[in-house]
């Protein structure tokens, strides 16, 4: 039997708050953070809303040498990592560098940096492209920069699976802990609110064209009409229990108790989508009966077909109205690889406060037999939480988090 994997620190950079305190203050009451795109001129695009992080000045948080060589997504990832280590009560220098690693997920890498350098390439020529373009655009860059800045020389990795990748990264971190690492910094980040990133979102489809921030992203609502992109993510410090106890870690948030992942069958095959099997795998991995689950943090695609699939999977496992379901990402939009790690942060804070954050703006469609925590937060004893994430291309991942005794 493997030792338990504990969540000992959290750091978050989300449209609803930079830092855990601001984030939770907004999330617990469902404060909307979606608004008009301001990071680039989106006036000529069919979709013009986003969940943006306002007021983030990288130079206030990061060394002068790092700022010119990093995209916004990496700057957010580095700041969230600093917060997570601080939250864990740990200086990376306290442990041997080779005992610590980092695994992150990303969907699109440094889009804005890449866009700017490509623009210079086309308009001014190759001599004008930054030498830092060599890595700043890359979806692996967050893992690399986090490792370098914090001197984490143990196992590293990068997962790409859209939303699902954010949970897959945490699971990969647990594998590395079970193979002997002491600590893994794990999470996911995306920030592609720039014309290049927007083109990718639009080409992939399902972007909401609503002009009204409160009506644009409505998972499980009869008016669901697509999603709004958000930016940011979260970094979770995961430690093996024995090591955490030995260093005197106090106030660990939860146990990372179970994980399951599946791929959807080929489109048109008529076979059942993979989400239900991912949930069952995660529950089995955690040794957890469905009746023990106190809340489900839904993926909340905001696309009717996908919402229906998710509602059916939840009902199949838990029964009609069998468990409270929430999707607090309605406040931020969908953050790609960052979305599920942000939900993990919400889940452990739900446990701590005994409060399930609401699915802002949503009125549950009568077509779904789920107990959606809509509009208002709900007080509840949260001992076990299930976080779901699905990615384009048929990725399904599920994670079970359990409160510590």
């Amino acid at each position, binding site marked *: 039997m493997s030792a338990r994997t504990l969540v000992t620190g959290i750091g978050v950079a989300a449209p609803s708050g930079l830092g855990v305190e601001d984030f939770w203050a907004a999330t617990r009451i469902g404060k909307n953070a979606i608004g008009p795109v301001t990071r680039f001129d989106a006036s000529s695009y069919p979709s013009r809303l986003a969940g943006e992080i306002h007021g983030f000045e990288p130079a206030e948080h990061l060394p002068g*040498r*790092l700022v*010119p060589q990093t995209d916004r997504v990496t700057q957010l990832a580095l700041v969230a990592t600093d917060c997570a280590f601080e939250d864990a009560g740990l200086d990376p220098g306290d442990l041997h560098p080779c005992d610590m690693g980092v695994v992150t997920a990303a969907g699109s890498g440094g889009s804005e940096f890449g866009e700017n350098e490509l623009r210079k390439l086309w308009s001014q020529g190759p001599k004008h492209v930054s030498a830092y373009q060599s890595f700043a655009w890359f979806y692996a860059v967050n893992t690399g920069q986090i490792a370098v800045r914090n001197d984490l020389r143990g196992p590293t990795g990068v997962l790409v699976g859209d939303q699902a990748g954010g949970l897959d990264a945490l699971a990969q971190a647990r594998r590395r802990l079970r193979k002997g690492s002491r600590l893994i910094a794990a999470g996911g980040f995306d920030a592609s609110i720039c014309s290049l990133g927007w083109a990718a979102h639009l080409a992939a489809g399902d972007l909401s064209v609503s002009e009204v921030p409160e009506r644009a992203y409505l998972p499980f609502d009869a008016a669901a009409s697509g999603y709004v992109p958000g930016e940011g993510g979260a970094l979770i410090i995961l430690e093996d229990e024995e090591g955490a106890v030995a260093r005197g870690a106090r106030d660990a948030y939860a146990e990372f108790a179970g994980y399951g992942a599946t791929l959807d069958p080929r489109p048109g095959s008529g076979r059942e989508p993979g989400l239900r099997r991912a949930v069952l795998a995660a529950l089995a991995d955690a040794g957890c009966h469905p009746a023990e689950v106190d809340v489900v943090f839904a993926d909340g695609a905001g696309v009717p077909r996908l919402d229906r699939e998710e509602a059916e999977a939840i009902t199949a496992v838990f029964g009609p109205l069998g468990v409270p379901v929430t999707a607090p990402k309605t406040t931020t939009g969908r953050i790609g690889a960052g979305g599920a790690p942000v939900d993990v942060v919400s889940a452990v804070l739900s446990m701590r406060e005994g409060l399930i954050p609401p699915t802002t703006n949503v009125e549950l469609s009568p077509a779904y037999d789920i107990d959606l925590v809509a509009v208002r937060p709900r007080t509840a004893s949260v001992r076990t939480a299930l976080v779901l994430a699905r990615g384009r291309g048929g990725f399904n991942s599920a994670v079970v988090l359990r409160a510590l005794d």
Partner: protein
Amino acid sequence: MKGPHVSKQEFTFDDLKRILLEGAGADEEVDLDGDILDTDFESLGYESLALLETGSRIEREFDITLDDDIFADHTTPRSLVEAINASLKVTVDA
């Protein structure tokens, strides 16, 4: 060969500091305005990629082509400024 165009053809220590800051930023523990003329770029916190970016910016702004080994042969600000001015002089004379 007189006139404003020629007067730009000198590479100063201030030019170097400005280009380093623009392209690669500065380490908080280093004062670029201090006595650093004879300090190695490495000690100033600039790794090979930062120097590549710096060289590329100098080439663009001063319309010259630097030798690939320039930062290997000239590892301090003083030495680099002298080498680039020598290179500019050749360009102007030619």
